[in-house]
């Protein structure tokens, strides 16, 4: 019984910390060589960063911060 409780506790604690560091969908810090920038720009409301959409060679979309922040 105690062993089962320990496993459950370990899973819960693990999930807690993993959830704090989950990457955001499609977000990268810098564009890779060969990526094309688009004119799709928006303000990320959760971080106030200006984000730009870039396309990779396959046409997949990536969200890259522009390095500027809007005043909140």
């Amino acid at each position, binding site marked *: 019984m105690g062993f089962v409780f320990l496993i459950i506790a370990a899973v819960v604690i693990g999930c*807690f910390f993993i*959830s704090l560091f989950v990457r955001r*969908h499609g977000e990268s810090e810098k564009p890779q060589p060969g990526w094309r920038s*688009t004119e*799709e720009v*928006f303000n990320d409301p*959760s971080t106030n960063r200006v984000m730009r959409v870039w396309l990779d060679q396959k046409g997949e*979309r990536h969200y890259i911060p522009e390095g500027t922040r809007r005043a909140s």
Partner: protein
Amino acid sequence: MVFGRSESADTMSDDGPRYGEPGGSQFPITTALTFPGQEVDKSLGMVFGVVVRSMGLGKNITAGIRSLAGGEVKQYTRLVEDSRRHALDRMIENGQLIGADAILSFRLDSSEVGQSLTEIVAYGTAVTFKKQ
């Protein structure tokens, strides 16, 4: 979304189609029923992008504490923003899959699935344009 130019758009040229225009650097999407200067050749039907996302245990706890204090709960804002991006990306993939030139009447819809799960549906009508 802002459809403007930026100095960091270094791979874009000043000539040619702008973002969102057919032939531009990005897949054309509009909330309108038509695309200015383009004539719809064929409607390919509706395309969807669906996603259900969760914040996870850690952020749920911090968001719960934050919501007690009132004001904006950034963790939930982030969840919805991520879901929007994800659903939009999936809708574009589905549009490209069936050979669409653009998506008209783009809409977003949202609902909850269980507790602390958010569902976002992006949808629109995939069309091809007459070649000019």
